[in-house]
């Protein structure tokens, strides 16, 4: 089995952050905030966050902050709850949460919808303001998205999908409501996602994709069922998706790499306790050190 090309991946992530004129960065312009979170969290897990200029990132990030308290995906873009979460996560990585006015950011309207409720719950929890929303109502809505196969869809009756399952299980984990999940049934559905190549898919009969190494694996970790899949085979699948020459990880072997899959590949390996990687928290999708700092030192 190959090894994780740590140094190459670090170089790849740094080069993407800098390459502002490339086609990818033009198309991704509106979600640069997500890109920053993916890239920087991956760097943290790889133990290389110190290669980044903190002040530069923080000052760019703050220029995306709006009067309403929400963050835009880039300078000059409208605020959105998704980018607000990414911004808060990036600030948490750098231990710079004190640069924002928490009360103002948490006054940004957080909508209750299955995917959005994870975003809201995660963001508010990091900022110690879960009391700003009706948690009970959010939990009730999430449970209404539960299907007979044990999984969750994005709306009541929507097909079970690993990405949605992560959002729902993550939100339930953060709010201490995991006892409301049928862990054995959901765990079986999730471990059925592993296909012969070792990779995980997001729904039955779909192709495996490295990003599900995060969505499926983090969910299995939260419900204590991660040992139900073959760790060795999944590690091999992720390593097979590396570009060992130029760095980066792709969705499937031999496809083009991107920051999104690079993050999910590294994060998946972290959950699989791959040597040399810092551990990641499955619910907050942030390094465990960062979560400990947020909840146990303040």
């Amino acid at each position, binding site marked *: 089995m190959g090894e994780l090309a740590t140094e190459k991946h670090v170089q790849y992530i740094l080069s993407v952050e800098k390459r502002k004129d490339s086609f990818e960065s033009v*198309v991704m312009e509106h979600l640069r905030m997500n890109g920053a979170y993916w890239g920087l969290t991956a760097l943290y897990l790889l133990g290389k966050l110190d290669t980044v200029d903190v002040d530069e990132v923080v000052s760019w990030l703050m220029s995306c902050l709006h009067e309403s308290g929400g963050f835009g995906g880039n300078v000059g*873009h*409208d605020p*959105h709850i998704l980018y607000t979460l990414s911004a808060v996560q990036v600030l948490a990585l750098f231990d710079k949460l004190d640069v924002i006015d928490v009360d103002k950011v948490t006054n940004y309207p957080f909508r209750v919808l299955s995917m959005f409720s994870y975003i809201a719950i995660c963001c508010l929890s990091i900022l110690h303001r879960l009391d700003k929303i009706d948690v009970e109502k959010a939990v009730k809505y999430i449970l209404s998205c539960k299907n007979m196969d044990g999984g969750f869809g994005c709306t009541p*009756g*929507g097909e079970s999908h690993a990405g949605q399952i992560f959002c729902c299980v993550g939100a339930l984990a953060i709010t201490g409501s995991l006892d409301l999940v049928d862990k054995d049934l959901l765990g079986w559905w999730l471990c059925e996602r592993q296909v*012969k190549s070792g990779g995980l898919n997001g729904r*039955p009969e779909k192709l495996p994709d490295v990003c599900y190494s995060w969505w499926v694996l983090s969910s299995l970790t939260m419900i204590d069922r991660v040992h*139900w899949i073959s760790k060795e085979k999944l590690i091999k699948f992720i390593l097979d998706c590396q570009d060992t020459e130029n760095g980066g990880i792709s969705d499937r072997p031999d496809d083009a790499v991107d920051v999104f899959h690079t993050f999910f590949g590294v994060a998946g390996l972290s959950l699989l306790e791959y040597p040399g990687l810092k551990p990641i928290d499955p619910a907050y999708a942030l390094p465990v050190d960062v979560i400990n700092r947020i909840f146990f030192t303040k």
Partner: protein
Amino acid sequence: MDYFRAVYVADERSPRALALTAEALQFNSGNYTVWHFRRLILESLKIDLHSELGFVERMAAGNSKNYQMWHHRRWVAEKLGPEARNIELDFTKKILSIDAKHYHAWSHRQWVLQALGGWENELNYCTELLEVDIFNNSAWNQRYFVITRSPFLGGLKAMRESEVLYTIEAIEGYPENESSWRYLRGLYKGETASWVNDPQVSSVCLKILRTKTNYVFALSTILDLICSGYQPMEDIRDAIVALKTTDMDKQNNDDDEIGDQQNLNIARSICSILEQVDPIRINYWIWRKSRLLPST
């Protein structure tokens, strides 16, 4: 993009600005700021929303997988109300004819059915899609959505008999199909006793076991049944024993044993077989075995 920024900053709600949003979206359909501004212009200029549906359809031809476009589509359909029903059902059908598992299209379609109606033909539509691809989990999910939520079908209980027949036929054709097995279980949601006692369930399992191929889901169903109180008949026990390989502990299945002990041994045998034929999930099957209690 710079022209767009200029009209956006000036909040210019004009036909020219509307045209600029279209141009900006053709360049990048994921830019939610542009979509949002486009809605403000559509409202201010009181544009005929039917033409807007055409615009979204042309956008979808390029990239149909972004949340903004679907959010916009729903906004337009909501404004048009029931008159948009058939247009929306046709629109999603068109997208599903290209990608039958398109998550956004299914979500939109479920919303249309619930908000605007049009349930009458939906079960047939599911059947059509499953005829094309019986492994299509999205179509199975939609089928479940229809039989449990359609106001015309009388609910799960009323639909059970015909749906069980339909599903069993699907399972017999492709017993390796996870979706059809889960659907079958779902037909007895909240009524485990009916599931355990329905001879159709155990007999489809038996039929698959006897073919000695693609029997993982048949075996796991028998295991679940036993864990819910089912007592396997002799023919099922024989079919399971016939699947055991020589290196498995044969003495587990002693026909002299009766009742609980016999069920326990059969359940253990099932787990042993599954550990061997589904090795990627070996830990799951080992765990299932460890959970078997003498009272099972």
